[in-house]
């Protein structure tokens, strides 16, 4: 198809390559470097979408990021489908595939557009009113219907195959916005030698210089000057220039989030490039040069495809070389639309008429328009746009009423004036101030180290803008307070403006013909289909604050965040309330400025980098043996080691039996380990644990309990005293980091007088538990320098020596109730020592066992697991561990909390054993326990099951439970009601195997 609206010689894409693309299945040709919007317009396509609520046909309003209407789906492949892409931002590449949204069955004929006819039912606040009756219909009827009809675009249904990267960056001066102001500020800052980042959302720098044909700087066309200046900046070592980069959020202390669109504009991005890169920038000073956004005029049917902002039409012409029509009408309340009319006329486009709301405007642009033979009408309004799928006419009337005249046009270029982009300033918590003379909000009180320059600051005229920006850039660099910059300083001069375009005030609110006495659809917010009438209605229904009006009407709440609509909405509300605009207030601007993909927020943190996966030194061996792993926090732990044909149950049974019959090897490396060193080490241990430590002899171990100050169990573990001033403390696997933090907290802030230091040694030592009657025989042949006899190395002792020729801390301890050892070796030796022990173990029929068997074996002995059998509300007494609390101690963390009235009261839940009447039934962990199963529901629950397993060694199921007054209920029958049956259980002691503990030395 020939691009019939491309104007030979116009625009800046002359050298560009042809790019073929499709829209709704139709093939078109465009030019690389232009936007999808530009390419569609070049092909005469204006109808690109349907509106959200009324499904009205929509075209392009703008040529930039503020676009509310032209949202399309871009599809690269089945997994790369991006909905709600602004066609005015998406750059064209060869093969691009785009689809319209929010229409069925087709864009030109949309069934839901009936909503347009039925629109009285869908007026402001309709969600809150229409669907309220009957009440039951909401869930079954209204909500499903609304959900099906609402929403823009379709979310992709496959994992995102692209990757995203992230970078922290630091600079002295961050300049946001790369128009004339931003470039001038960046030049001044960069010349002083400080670190500068300049970012702009467009692929090309220049901002409004992209369309302002009247700008001349340093003897060049404004846009050409911008390219030269940015090239110069990019070549400087102290400057980073980021194009296609949107500053979406301005956070505390000059922390700004930027998203760089790295490859969305490329035909085949390749694996090397991320799709987007998130920049988290910390800047000493920020210069906001975010420009201004043109406002549309609020008149009847101003949403017809072909009705667009005047500056957009100029951008399409001057930058992309595309005419938006052949016979355009212009509707304006300021001068800048005249410039659009003049540019189009000069390019050979017919300009049917300029309709100006002002009574007697004067100026060079007006004279020039007249000189070009364009019909100019003052004091008149466009009261209606004709046409449906494309604008076909504009109806003009004197603004105070009178005869109508309909002028055929194929596009209407409108301009109500310019709104300074104070979004980022406002996000920085700066307060805007209303300038009554120019009727605009501009930066007022600053909250952070930033400055606004140019149009976003309400500064008019190119010369004034560059003066202000250049000075602000230099000042920002100076204020950044960088010392010794030297090397990067270059001499520069302020760019001289040779010619510029004039600026004039515009209007706010509804135009004549869309006033309070009308019911026309004059859109304020295109994306959310909010009309002037809706806003008035909100006020009539009692909304007074602009925040309420916004939520009631949803004005400004769509993905464009009201970039074009906020000021009009505010003005209409103010007029209806009969209050000045500042008294009605401005809604809060929040991040993100434009939508941000989840991918760029996630960045590198996906797949293997979602979270660290921690593996022990012995992991490769377990993996080679076919172990099944479970996640314990970030750790992968061997869960069980199935032999051929074994399921989990069979493997665990075999492992449990083998440990008690011969021996088993268990990887306990993940246990937290802390070395406590210093002359006051024992004193510190006395304060952090309930147990007494002063008298523990070097070479001996003790099971320690740690409480929080409130008296509840926080952690536990075996502690070995290596020397008078050195303890080797172990913690639970999951508790390691918080126990270390807890201990450091007390040491640094409560007991800083103690001479003791803590070092995490969790990862220094690999730990191999060898448990079972044959354990000593397995270890002994490999040990040097340690007498392993019961006399020399009794249960609960520790020795340092060597195993397989490498250092070891050998603990004699047991978490199975069997004779047991824990062999600590430096981590890099872990696997080799494990293999040596495995070889020896094979001679005795030992097995490797995993965490499941470990859990069963300890439960058979009634050893608790903190965090499973305790839940942060269990005292040592509740857990039957009173013996571990030093009775003569005068202080330790938790000593007072433990004595609180509720913690010593009768009837507390206590840890007990449970045996099911039917030994084959295994209780469910977490199941609730009741005394009388026949009571009415809801039953009084007196406890719950904390641990429950099949014990092959006991030939029955076993369980631990927290039961109110549990230790006084020994032998009592209790009940566990389950969905299918009520299970009868007997309360027992916690030890199910070897009650006398003889096997520790067996």
């Amino acid at each position, binding site marked *: 198809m020939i691009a019939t609206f491309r104007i030979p010689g116009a625009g800046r894409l002359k050298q560009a390559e042809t790019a073929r693309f499709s829209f709704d299945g139709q093939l078109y040709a465009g030019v690389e470097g232009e936007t999808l919007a530009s390419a569609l317009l070049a092909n005469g396509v204006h109808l690109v979408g349907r509106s959200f609520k009324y499904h009205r046909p929509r075209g392009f309003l703008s040529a930039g990021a503020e676009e509310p209407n032209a949202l399309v789906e871009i599809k690269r492949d089945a997994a790369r489908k991006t909905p709600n892409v602004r066609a005015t931002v998406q750059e064209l590449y060869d093969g691009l595939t785009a689809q319209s949204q929010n229409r069925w069955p087709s864009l030109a004929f949309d069934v839901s557009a009936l909503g347009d006819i039925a629109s009285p039912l869908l007026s402001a606040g309709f969600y809150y009113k229409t669907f309220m009756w009957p009440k039951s219909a909401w869930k079954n009827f209204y909500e499903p219907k609304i959900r099906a009809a609402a929403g823009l675009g379709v979310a992709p249904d496959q994992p995102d195959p692209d990757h995203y990267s992230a970078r922290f960056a630091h600079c002295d001066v961050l300049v946001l916005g790369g128009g004339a102001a931003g470039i001038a500020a960046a030049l001044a800052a960069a010349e002083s030698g400080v670190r500068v980042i300049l970012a702009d959302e467009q692929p090309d720098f220049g901002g409004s210089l992209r369309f302002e044909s009247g700008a001349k700087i340093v003897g060049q066309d404004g846009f050409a000057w911008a390219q030269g200046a940015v090239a110069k900046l990019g070549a400087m070592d102290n400057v980073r220039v980021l194009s296609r980069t949107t500053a979406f959020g301005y956070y505390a202390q000059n922390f700004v989030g930027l998203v760089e669109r790295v490859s969305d504009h490329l035909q085949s991005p390749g694996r090397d490039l991320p799709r987007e890169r998130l920049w988290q920038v910390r800047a000493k000073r920020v210069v906001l040069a975010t420009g201004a956004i043109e406002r549309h005029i609020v008149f009847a049917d101003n949403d017809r495809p072909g009705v667009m902002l005047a500056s957009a039409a100029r951008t399409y012409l001057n930058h992309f070389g595309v005419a938006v029509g052949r016979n355009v009408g212009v509707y304006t309340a300021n001068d800048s639309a005249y410039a659009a009319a003049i540019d189009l006329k000069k390019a050979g486009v017919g300009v049917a008429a300029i309709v100006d709301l002002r009574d007697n405007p004067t100026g060079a642009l007006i004279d020039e328009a007249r000189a070009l033979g364009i019909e100019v009408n003052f004091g008149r309004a466009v009261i209606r746009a004709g046409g449906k799928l494309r604008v076909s006419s504009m109806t003009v009337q004197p603004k105070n009423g009178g005869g109508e005249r309909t002028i055929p046009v194929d596009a209407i270029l409108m301009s109500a004036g310019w709104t300074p982009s104070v979004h980022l300033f406002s996000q920085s918590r700066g307060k805007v101030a209303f300038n009554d003379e120019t009727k605009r909000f501009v930066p007022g009180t600053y909250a952070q180290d930033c400055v606004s320059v140019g149009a976003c600051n309400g500064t008019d005229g190119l010369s004034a803008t560059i003066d202000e920006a250049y000075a602000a850039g230099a000042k920002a660099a100076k204020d950044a307070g960088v010392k010794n910059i030297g090397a990067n300083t270059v001499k520069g001069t302020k760019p001289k403006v040779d010619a510029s375009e004039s600026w004039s005030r515009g209007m706010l609110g509804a135009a004549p013909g869309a006033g309070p006495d009308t019911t026309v659809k004059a859109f304020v917010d295109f994306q959310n289909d909010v009309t002037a009438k809706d806003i008035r209605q909100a006020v009539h229904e009692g909304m007074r604050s602009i925040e309420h009006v916004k939520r009631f009407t949803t004005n400004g709440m769509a993905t464009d965040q009201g970039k074009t609509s906020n000021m009009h909405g505010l003005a209409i509300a103010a007029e209806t309330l009969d209050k000045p605009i500042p008294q009605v207030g401005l809604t809060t601007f929040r991040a993100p400025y434009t939508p941000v993909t989840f991918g760029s927020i996630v960045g590198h943190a996906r797949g293997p980098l979602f979270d660290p996966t921690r593996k022990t030194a012995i992991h490769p061996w377990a993996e080679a043996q076919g172990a099944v792993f479970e996640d314990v926090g970030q750790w992968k732990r061997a869960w069980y080691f199935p032999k051929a044909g074994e399921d989990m149950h069979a493997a665990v049974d075999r492992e449990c039996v083998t440990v008690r019959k011969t021996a088993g090897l268990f990887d306990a490396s993940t246990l937290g380990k802390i070395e406590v060193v210093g002359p006051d080490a024992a004193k510190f241990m006395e304060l952090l644990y309930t147990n007494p430590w002063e008298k523990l002899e070097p070479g001996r171990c003790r099971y320690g309990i740690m409480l929080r100050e409130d008296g509840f169990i926080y952690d536990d573990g075996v502690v070995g005293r290596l020397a008078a001033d050195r303890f080797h403390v172990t913690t639970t696997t999951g508790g390691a980091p918080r126990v270390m933090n807890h201990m450091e*907290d007390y040491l640094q802030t409560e007991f800083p007088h103690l001479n003791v230091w803590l070092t995490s040694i969790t990862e220094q030592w690999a730990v191999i538990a060898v448990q079972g009657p044959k354990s000593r025989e397995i270890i002994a042949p490999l040990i040097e320098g340690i007498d392993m006899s019961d006399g020399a190395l009794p249960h609960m002792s520790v020795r340092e020596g060597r195993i397989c020729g490498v250092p070891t801390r050998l603990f004699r301890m047991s978490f199975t109730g069997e004779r047991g050892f824990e062999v600590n070796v430096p981590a890099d030796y872990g696997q080799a020592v494990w293999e040596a022990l495995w070889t020896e173990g094979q001679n005795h029929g030992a097995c490797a066992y995993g965490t499941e068997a470990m859990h069963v074996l300890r439960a058979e002995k009634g050893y608790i697991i903190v965090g499973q059998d305790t839940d942060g509300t269990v005292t040592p007494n509740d857990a039957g561990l009173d013996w571990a609390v030093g009775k003569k101690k005068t202080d330790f963390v938790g000593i*007072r909390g433990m004595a609180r009235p509720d913690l010593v009261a009768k009837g507390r839940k206590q840890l007990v054993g449970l045996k099911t009447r039917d030994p084959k039934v295994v209780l469910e962990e977490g199941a609730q326990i009741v005394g009388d199963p026949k009571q009415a529901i809801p039953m009084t629950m007196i406890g719950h099951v904390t641990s429950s397993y099949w014990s092959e060694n006991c030939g029955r199921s076993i369980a631990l439970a927290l039961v109110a007054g549990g230790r006084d209920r020994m032998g009592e029958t209790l009940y566990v009601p389950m969905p299918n049956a009520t299970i009868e259980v007997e309360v027992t002691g916690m030890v199910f195997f070897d009650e006398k503990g003889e096997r520790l030395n067996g």
Partner: protein
Amino acid sequence: MLLIRCPYCEEERPELEFRNAGEAHIARSADMAATSDDDFEKFFFIRSNPKGIIYERWRHMHGCARFFNAVRDTVSDRFLMTYKAGEPKPAKLPGASE
């Protein structure tokens, strides 16, 4: 992300390196076991949670690992100052309006 000045590292560092540790200047009794129920309640459970100036503990967890104290305005989220653990509550706050 805030910047927090660590009094031990003597410079501002990114918030990601820090962890909040609750209200500061709540003294643990030297004779803990003899504390009355009321005093223990105040010590362990009661926190001021002010709108405005709060004295709080932070730990430079992924930096020098020291605990220290900070004065922060809960309304503006601004840190007024930081000081080492064990140092008294500052008598004067820099730039405090309240």
